[in-house]
């Protein structure tokens, strides 16, 4: 009994629980469904308010980087992506869904930029916003969706689905929030090595693991060694930091490694097999898509029937 009470106490003690509760309630109200006697407009309004409230509480967990501009952008992009996601799945009109999804993709790309992944940001925008979403819209137009279809206004068992997904969200939130912040992290490996912090107590950077498993040259090979050894800008900063012990003026040196060059170097050495497999996958998908959409007569069995043709012929451009 005490255990259960303990559980309930710790669950209710988390701010995130309320964020999830509000967010879940709001999303449930926003999902297209007949909400009993409540008018759709009222349900939507209440849902939007609840979602906004939930998001605000959720955002209290966010700890932006110290600098002002990245912090502002982080909040903006994060909020946009989450709101865009909610609207993607709740819009009645598939076209609107696709456009909201585009906003999710764009803000994700912004977050990529903040994480110093400009190549990936560009790639995401090009592939998703440029190709995928346009293709989606193309298909939507092909199918002449109008947002008035019954099935677009009736979500399937929204209660259960909301419960499921928000339980998962709560679990993810709980596990992420309980990550040890580790104030000492970031102060360099010398500190770690001195204090001998237990690695399982906090999320170590793999390059900091060096302090525990020895120098990269000692007994590591291949991918492990490259993963641990300095490769990106951060690691280079740490390299400089190593020199800082005897050269105090070198502390602020940050050597920027070109992003694309770094990715390419890693991709075509450590991950060559993955690249080959991905290429094969793309090729197979190409062949598959062509094979599937190849218009053959048996696709519509009753196409000889003129009435049927008249009925479904309108969908053909």
């Amino acid at each position: 009994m005490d255990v259960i009470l303990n559980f309930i106490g710790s669950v209710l003690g988390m701010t995130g629980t309320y964020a999830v509760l509000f967010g879940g309630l709001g999303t449930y109200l926003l999902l297209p469904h007949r909400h009993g006697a409540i008018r759709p407009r009222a349900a939507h309004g209440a849902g939007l308010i609840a979602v906004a409230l939930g998001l605000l509480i959720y955002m209290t967990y966010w700890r932006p980087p110290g600098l002002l501009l990245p912090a502002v952008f982080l909040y903006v992009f994060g909020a946009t992506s989450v709101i865009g996601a909610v609207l993607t799945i709740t819009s009645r009109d598939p076209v609107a869904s696709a456009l909201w999804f585009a906003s999710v993709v764009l803000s994700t790309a912004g977050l990529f930029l903040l994480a110093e992944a400009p190549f990936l940001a560009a790639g995401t925008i090009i592939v998703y916003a440029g190709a995928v979403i346009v293709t989606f819209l193309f298909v939507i137009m092909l199918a002449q969706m109008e947002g008035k279809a019954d099935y677009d206004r009736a979500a399937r068992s929204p209660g259960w689905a909301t419960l499921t997904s928000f339980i998962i969200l709560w679990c993810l939130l709980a596990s992420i929030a309980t990550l040890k912040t580790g104030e000492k992290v970031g102060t360099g490996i010398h500190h770690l090595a001195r204090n001998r912090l237990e690695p399982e107590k906090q999320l170590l950077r793999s390059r900091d693991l060096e302090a525990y498993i020895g120098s990269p040259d000692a007994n590591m090979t291949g991918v492990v060694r490259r993963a641990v050894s300095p490769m990106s800008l951060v690691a280079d900063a740490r390299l400089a930091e190593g020199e800082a012990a005897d050269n105090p003026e070198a502390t602020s040196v940050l050597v920027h490694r070109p992003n694309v060059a770094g990715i390419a170097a890693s991709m075509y050495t450590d991950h060559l097999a993955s690249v080959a497999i991905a290429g094969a996958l793309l090729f197979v998908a190409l062949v598959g898509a062509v094979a599937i959409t190849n218009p053959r007569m048996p696709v519509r069995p009753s196409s000889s029937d003129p009435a049927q043709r008249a009925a479904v012929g309108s969908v053909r451009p």
Partner: protein
Amino acid sequence: MESAYEPGFFVRNAWLIPFFPLLGALVTAVGARRLRGLAHLPVWAGIGLAFLVSLGTLASADHAAKYTVFEWLSAGNLEVPFQVRVDGLSTMMLSMVTFVSGLVAIFAAGYMHGDPSYPRFFALIGLFVASMTGLVLSNNYLLTYVFWEGVGACSYLLIGFWYARPSAAAAAMKAFLVNRVGDFGFAIAIFWLWSIAPGHDLSYDSIFAAAESGSIPTSAIAGISLLLFWGATAKSAQIPLYTWLPDAMEGPTPVSALIHAATMVTAGVYLLARSMPMVAMAPGVQAVIAATGCATALLAAAIALTQNDLKRVMAYSTVSQLGYMFMALGSGVGDVAQLAVVAAMFHLFTHAFFKALLFLASGSVMHAMGDVIDMRRFRGLRHRLPITYLTFAVGALALAAFPPLSGFFSKDEVLGAISGAIHASESYSWVYQIVYWTALVTAFMTAFYTGRAFFLTFHGPEKLPSPNDPEAPPVDAHAHGHADDAHGHHHEIGHESPPVMAIPLMILAGCTVLIGLICLVAWPITGGPAEWFAGHLEKTLGFEALGHGEHGFSWFTATLGTLLGVGGIALAYVMYAEPGPLPARMKERFGALYRASLGKFYVDEFYDATVVAIVRISASISDFVDTYVVDRLITGIALIPRAIGRARLALYQNGLIQFYAASSALCVAFLLLFLVLLGLQRP
């Protein structure tokens, strides 16, 4: 001492002997469609190469010559390497097996010509030879057992080669099942050996060393020897498991020659000879072996007296001669042990040649007579089949132990070994006394039935089989008379066989004479007719420890044996050389005995009424229990989930992707929740 031994070239490559025929068999099997009428070539080449390697190993034979080809089985404390042993016994067997098999394969190319399953036949022959040579080469009981089973499986496939014929299928099944009974004994012997062998090492040298040093209790040695003998009785057709061998001639005649002469039946004799260092320590078991061999020899000879089927006579004579070999093996007591083994193996060696010769000659007769083998339906073939006649005569004389052919010397060795055992054995002397005299009587019967078969076939007025022959059985009970052209003999009857069949006959006849001549020539030089053979065989693992025994050529035994042999042939000549009233009168005089012999003493019928009937009854009981108790129980239990599924669970199988996805996601969610709550509680 043994570790200092450096394996020579042929010892290191002795594994090629089973490998070549196997390769030939594989090539034939894979290329069956391409090769068609040439399917015999890869097997010929395989057996021929194996023979050459065997000849090479003859010179390298040594007590300690063994070589590990690769690690075969390694499980826990059981280590079974694929190890070959190249000593006197195995090299002798290898040369004999590959030589005789090669000749049989050559003969078969003519005999089986035109058969639709020609490639299958040769593939099986290759496999058979590979199994037999592997059996002889292997250096531990487990590997021997593997090839032992391989030989059994190949014999099953070859006896049932014309599987469409019910009698052939039944004979194959019978051979296989009877052999299973024997294999059971062998298997138990191996289990027992494994449990008591030092280090669970099943190789021959370690077991014999352990037996010699006394670390294996005497009772265990006796039990294991008896079990090994049990296994050998099935393979080598001794009482009580001999009944499969006479039926085994349902297969093509070359297969009979192979089984009776070179490969199958020699396996049991070989196994006992190989285990002789151990078996010789159990005199009681030795007496049992000798007595069994003696009884088998007498019984089979008595049956062979009256059979009308030429091949059946030969089959029973094989059983009888195997009985001789077991008599000799069983006589290996005390200080004549080595002498006995040498006698047994020498008889095996000579018998392989003249029995292969006799079978192939019978096959030649059968070939010429359009698949008729009943001796009542043809006579006086000596002018039509001159080569067959002469070669058959050589074989028959050798079988009748006519001096100076090979059979005379080997049979004399056997008799000498038995008479040696009479003096050497302490408590079982009376057994060997009986065995000795029975063996002499059997020698007389052997000469008689051999002469009878010979004279009935080749002498007297000429007569060829015809459908309206009054002597022909109304409904051809014998499968050979079916003449169903299953193997495509479309030629005229009554002609001599083609050279591809005649040449192996001549070679085998030559060998039979040659071995006799070698004995004759070597006698004054080495001091005994078979000393050259014994000298080679002495280089066998464990044989040097066996008692050598003083062996003088016993003029008494030799003269008695010769007189009996000549007497038997003479009696046969009087009775059968020309058609006369004597056989019919004899038939009337000894009516009961004659019928019993003709009916093979009703042993098969006895087995049917006892063992087979019991098995059948228990099988029907099991069938009943299985159908009405076990099956009902299982189906009843299976009904419960089906009912539950129909009533409740099927509704959830509604075909909606989202329902499925939601179910699994919900489960994942609860699982995650559980884990997270667990993690929350810990700090």
